[in-house]
């Protein structure tokens, strides 16, 4: 919980006199702000209080929530942090009535609000006035309704909460398809005429003029994706080109939008853990980690894992980081044209780690390993020894080998040095996180600035690089693997004996009413989970602050001015995984 408890009892509201009329109240979890003064207040917080980083922006629909009326049905929630001092941030909340869900956009204060505001608009239909491109981003123009609203039901809707009773009446399975007239997961509004249907025109990028270009040539719009070998999945970008130079770029997401958040609200708390595996499917262990941390905040003492489990979590999370960076470096080289050969070597190392995961959790990729208050299964001494062998011998040697072949490679240098420049100020303003942010020289790593779990016990360096380009991002990843090895060595030495799970395993988790934001420094950056509980067995709201998605804020600014071939490399260096980008 990011807010100060004392503000609750104190009669004065926090920052009450900063901007007159801005703060209208406060609850245990955040400051309630008047929407008309939101921009001014955010400016004040950014300029005077040092909250320069808008981490997460989301909304909650409180339709039918205890104590809420139509007057304050929607709530837009902002999590702001300080990248210099670190520590807990501040949470702003703006409450909006049902019939007039609009508020000013914060894009001028925090440019990183761009994609997140579009996401909220898409899901909740909340309008952000002043946003220059307030279009749908995950769904398509013309989609019927705003799906995350509590009164919007899917075609296969059965009941508010799982487990659905209708699934096994008298022990027989009923196909969901049989319940809808079309035999498929679709529904159409009354009065819609399919014969008169006209598809919406495709979105076009805003074109930026590059100063110093003398000859004016025709602009060409090129579509890349969703089926393109360089987009790391089903991402699509629409690029405006002047010759070969990128003059405009529009990201288009949603080709893998799998409705994690809507499904997450129907699942039980526990049932969401396997779903987090499928977010960033290259690093399922750290996704588990972030989610259990968030929910454990709401569970009090019961949610505190035993020592051995804490160590196992750190070991798994750091192994994941190595596996992920191995993959991303291999595929960055792919994007550079070194097709598949470097990737073969890095995938080989990842396989070694996956073997350990498979033995510990039963699955190579979808580990589903962590639980509230511990981990699912203990590992034996043999496992630990093999893990030690890996981190002491094999992995460091492989990192050195990669380093030797790649880091000073002429082609790599020529293609990545000075490409995709992103200054430190821009990176912070655009809410960029993870290795991307650190490659712009900002030493912001959640393991240090807001330590969670037992990271305060380990010695490691926060890797930064002042290059601000693709090469720096590559270097940071390389070095982070070495730091992970360092943490792993310490953790494997110190791991104590003992239980790995507190309490008895059960399907239903008792979670107190309230809300929590838990975040981990995942391999891609700050992976946050914002959960709201109404005290029942299912989350009221389950939001994922997805680093790969928010890092895309910087894609257009980084690509403009470079050649189209560079945009492929720049995208590769962001290291997106579509499962997480689109959720």
């Amino acid at each position: 919980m990011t807010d100060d408890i004392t503000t609750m009892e104190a009669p004065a509201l926090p920052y009450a006199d900063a901007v007159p009329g801005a703060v209208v109240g406060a609850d245990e979890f955040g400051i309630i702000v008047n929407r008309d003064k939101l921009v001014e207040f955010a400016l004040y917080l950014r300029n005077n209080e040092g909250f320069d980083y808008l981490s997460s922006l989301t909304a909650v629909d409180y339709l039918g929530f205890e104590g809420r009326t139509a007057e304050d049905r929607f709530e837009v929630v902002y999590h702001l942090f300080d990248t210099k001092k670190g520590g807990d941030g501040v949470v702003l909340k703006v409450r909006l009535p049902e019939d007039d869900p609009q508020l000013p956009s914060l894009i001028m204060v925090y440019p990183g609000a761009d994609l997140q505001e579009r996401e909220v608009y898409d899901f909740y239909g909340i309008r952000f006035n002043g946003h220059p491109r307030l279009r749908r981003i995950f769904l398509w123009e013309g989609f019927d309704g705003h799906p995350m609203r509590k009164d919007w039901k899917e075609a296969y809707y059965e009941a508010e909460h799982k487990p659905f009773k209708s699934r096994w009446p008298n022990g027989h399975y009923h196909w969901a398809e049989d319940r809808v007239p079309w035999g498929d997961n679709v529904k159409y509004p009354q009065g819609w005429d399919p014969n008169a249907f006209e598809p919406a025109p495709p979105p076009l990028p805003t074109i930026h003029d590059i100063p110093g270009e003398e000859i004016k040539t025709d602009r060409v719009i090129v579509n890349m994706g969703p089926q393109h070998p360089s987009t790391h999945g089903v991402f699509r970008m629409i690029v405006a080109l002047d010759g070969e130079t990128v003059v405009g770029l529009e990201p288009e997401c949603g080709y893998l939008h799998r409705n994690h958040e809507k499904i997450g609200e129907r699942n039980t708390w526990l049932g969401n853990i396997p779903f987090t595996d499928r977010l960033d499917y290259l690093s399922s262990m750290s996704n588990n980690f972030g989610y259990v941390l968030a929910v454990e905040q709401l569970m009090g003492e019961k949610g505190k894992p035993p020592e051995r489990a804490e160590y196992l979590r750190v070991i798994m999370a750091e192994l994941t980081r190595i596996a992920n960076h191995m993959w991303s470096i291999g595929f960055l080289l792919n994007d550079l044209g070194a097709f598949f050969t470097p990737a073969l070597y890095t995938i080989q190392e990842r396989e070694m780690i996956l073997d350990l995961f498979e033995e510990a959790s039963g699955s190579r990729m979808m580990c589903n390993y962590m639980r509230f208050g511990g981990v699912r299964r203990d590992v034996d001494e043999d496992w630990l020894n093999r893990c030690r062998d890996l981190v002491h011998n094999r992995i460091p040697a492989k990192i050195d080998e990669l380093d030797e072949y790649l880091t000073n490679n002429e082609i790599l240098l020529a293609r990545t040095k000075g490409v995709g420049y992103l200054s430190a100020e821009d990176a912070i303003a655009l809410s960029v996180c993870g290795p991307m942010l650190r490659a712009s020289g900002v030493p912001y790593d959640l393991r240090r600035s807001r330590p969670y779990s037992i990271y305060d016990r380990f010695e490691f360096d926060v890797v930064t690089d002042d290059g601000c380009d693709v090469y720096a991002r590559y270097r940071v990843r390389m070095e982070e693997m070495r730091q992970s090895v360092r943490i792993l060595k310490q953790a494997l030495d110190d791991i104590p004996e003992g239980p790995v799970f507190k309490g008895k395993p059960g399907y239903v988790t008792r979670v107190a009413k309230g809300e929590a934001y838990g975040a981990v420094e995942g391999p891609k950056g700050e992976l946050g989970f914002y959960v709201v509980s109404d005290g029942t067995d299912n989350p009221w709201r389950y939001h994922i602050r997805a680093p790969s998605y928010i890092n895309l804020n910087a894609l257009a600014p980084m690509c403009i001015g470079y050649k189209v071939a560079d945009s492929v490399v720049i995208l590769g260096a962001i290291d997106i995984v579509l499962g997480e980008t689109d959720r």
Partner: protein
Amino acid sequence: MANDQHIPEELQRNVFMTTVDFLYNWSRKNSMWPMLFGLACCAIEMICTAAGRYDLARFGMEVMRPSPRQCDLMIVSGTVTKKMAPTIVRLYNQMAEPRYVLSMGACATGGGPFKEGYNVVSGIDKYIPVDVYVPGCPPTPEALLYGILKLHEKVENQSVKTVPWYRKETPKGIAVPELGPDIFQPDRAEEIAMFTLRPIPAEES
């Protein structure tokens, strides 16, 4: 190779007789190029299958082509969303015959863990015909290899005389679905209109 007596003796060691089917299927089976196209988590396991440890090259399949024109096999590796479905159907139409589809994983087969999702298609076979289904979430590389071997078996047993792509009556493509208020197939428009445009009966309103 039954009628060897028609062949002059000096040629008997140099000429092999076989059926067109055998040769045709043998060559297709051993150089089946998959499309370089991944949808979701299952694609990662597909890439691992192509990498060093599981080595898809053993089956003559390491040449993954990003262009559908050069591919024989589409591995639908992951969740098919409504937004993506029109693209997949279009890619399928662009592939040259003979073409095969392998549905990899629970999602591509039936929606998988995300079946209830409002943007998820309950299996790619709602739109395009599938030859082999591989269960799992994600299927391990071994499972995918087994599925591929099953597909090879299927290819082996086909005959030029009966394969659909040399027949006149075989339709050339599949109608590409469109994204309206929800995804719909244009050839079902009349059916949908009958439902959405009917006057609402008094007892329902």
